[in-house]
């Protein structure tokens, strides 16, 4: 009996995305890279990516779950690129897949979900052909401060929550058009919640408020370790069904990144609340 339990097979999960999945501009990028499989070749320094997938892997380990984590990331790319250029690497039977596309939905038509919808359908068909039970999630990312506070940008002058809402709505369009998609992970809406609760500063261009954290990196575009941590908590909660709060205030990734226990709890609470609101 115990041998059977021990032999319980691991779930496989594939992450496809760009710099928002690889953890660009934060120490998340190469975090525990040895713990996950990067389908792309190492960089010139022989480094492979850890990023969000490695954080997810650590969370699942702490939760007593067993996942084989694989990733395929390419900076600045959308799902169209991954499908047309990387499909031979990806076209396998997976138990779960997390797809993350361009931060504005479409690099050339910002805010337009057509391309995302189109390639979500294609991926949905390809993955389901390999495993009819695969669970495919779409990871809807955050508002970019640079697209909101800089003149001439599409979300200029709008509330900081606006871009994430538009991105979330775009991913919902893609999900509805592809009936095989298991759900949308509302990472960007979790960021909005972090602004609303006052935990995170909504505008990095005028400095960071006392006791607040910055979810963005120095470019006000990518995420900081805090931002990526919140993203990984959302994915963990959605994919595994476990409560992010169950990881506890001594959660190891948070400790490795230098967060306080209070900050860890606050981020888990935000993810918990956002996941609960989505139900």
């Amino acid at each position, binding site marked *: 009996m115990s041998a059977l339990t021990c032999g319980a097979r691991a779930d496989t999960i594939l992450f496809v995305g760009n710099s928002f999945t690889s953890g660009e501009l934060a120490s998340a990028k190469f*975090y525990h890279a040895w713990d996950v499989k990067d389908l792309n070749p190492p960089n010139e320094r022989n480094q492979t990516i850890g990023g969000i997938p490695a954080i997810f892997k650590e969370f699942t380990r702490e939760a007593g779950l067993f996942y084989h984590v694989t990733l395929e990331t390419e900076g600045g790319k959308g799902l169209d690129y991954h499908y047309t250029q990387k499909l031979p690497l990806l076209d396998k039977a997976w138990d779960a897949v997390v797809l993350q596309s361009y931060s504005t939905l479409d690099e050339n038509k910002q805010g337009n979900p057509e391309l995302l919808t189109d390639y979500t359908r294609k991926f949905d068909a390809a993955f389901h052909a390999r495993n009819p039970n695969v669970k495919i999630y779409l990871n809807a990312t955050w508002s970019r401060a640079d697209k909101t506070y800089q003149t001439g940008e599409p979300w200029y002058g709008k509330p900081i929550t606006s871009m994430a809402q538009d991105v979330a709505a775009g991913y919902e369009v893609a999900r509805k058009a592809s009936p095989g998609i298991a759900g949308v992970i509302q990472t960007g809406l979790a960021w909005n919640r972090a602004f609303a609760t006052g935990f995170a500063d909504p505008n990095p261009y005028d400095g960071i408020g*006392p006791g*607040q954290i910055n979810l963005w990196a120095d470019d006000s575009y990518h995420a900081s370790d805090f931002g990526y941590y919140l993203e990984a908590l959302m994915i963990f909660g959605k994919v595994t069904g476990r409560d992010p709060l169950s990881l506890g205030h001594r959660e190891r990734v948070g400790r490795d990144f230098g967060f306080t226990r209070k900050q860890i709890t606050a981020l888990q609470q935000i993810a918990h609340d956002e996941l609960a609101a989505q139900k």
Partner: protein
Amino acid sequence: MRKIFCIAASVLALSAGAASARTILFIGNSFTLGSGSAAKNYQADTVHDLNPPDARGKTIGGEGAIFKEFTKEAGLDYDVSVEVVGGKNFDFHYTEKGQLLDRAWDEVVMQSYSQLNKDKPGDPSLVIEYSQKLDKMFHARNPNVKVWFQATWSRADYSSPEIAPWKGKPIDQMAKDVYAGFEKARSASPDTAGVIPVGLAWNRAWATGVADSDPTDGIGAGKLNLWTYDSQHGSNAGYILAALVVFGQITGRDPLSLGDREHVAMDLGLSPAQMHALEQVAHDELMAHGVKLAMN
């Protein structure tokens, strides 16, 4: 046969590498360890941690590993060892870890309790006493060893009684006092190589507006916070600045020679502009101390 050959070849390669590399030992506590930031476990596999791994099997990277990466990028070959224990001073390292440390090193960087003495903040007598012992021990093994003091930064955790003497004083005062304490230790141990002005470089980062000197009212637009959450230990940026100063002092290479797209900065999430600013601060601080810096 092939197996035996491979082992022989790898042993040969290892000893050849060890012979050419300069050995450097970092002694210190949580400030050298990189506590409170991702620097702590950064590239731990590139340095020798003389202490055993933690409960999760992790060893320390910290300042030693950042230094190692800098030297690698500069085309220099250093064999880096670290012996760090949180909250400890020179007396602990000498009495408890002496056996691990008592070897021939080319360079040693020693970092003491952050206010020089845990019970008597600002009092350098314990540091002076044990740096004499450590210096003697290292020189007995290698008469040409360079023993450096790393004078660390001002703390802003004013609720801590440990730094009571500096409460209400300008933020740069504690670093100046710590530096002055080490100058005394250096005079008392004339064979030591010098005091590395890490804390004074932090002062310069505040004075030049690169970093925010008071996190209690938030962080100013475009500024770095050199501390982590406790306003005591370093953030990634704070530790990188510390390592840049150590790198410039030890190797004589200009911190600016590492360039804006330096690997540690990219790995730990600093932008090219932020890294350039920190390199400039380290450069300026070392120049102010008369350190000769070469671009290659």
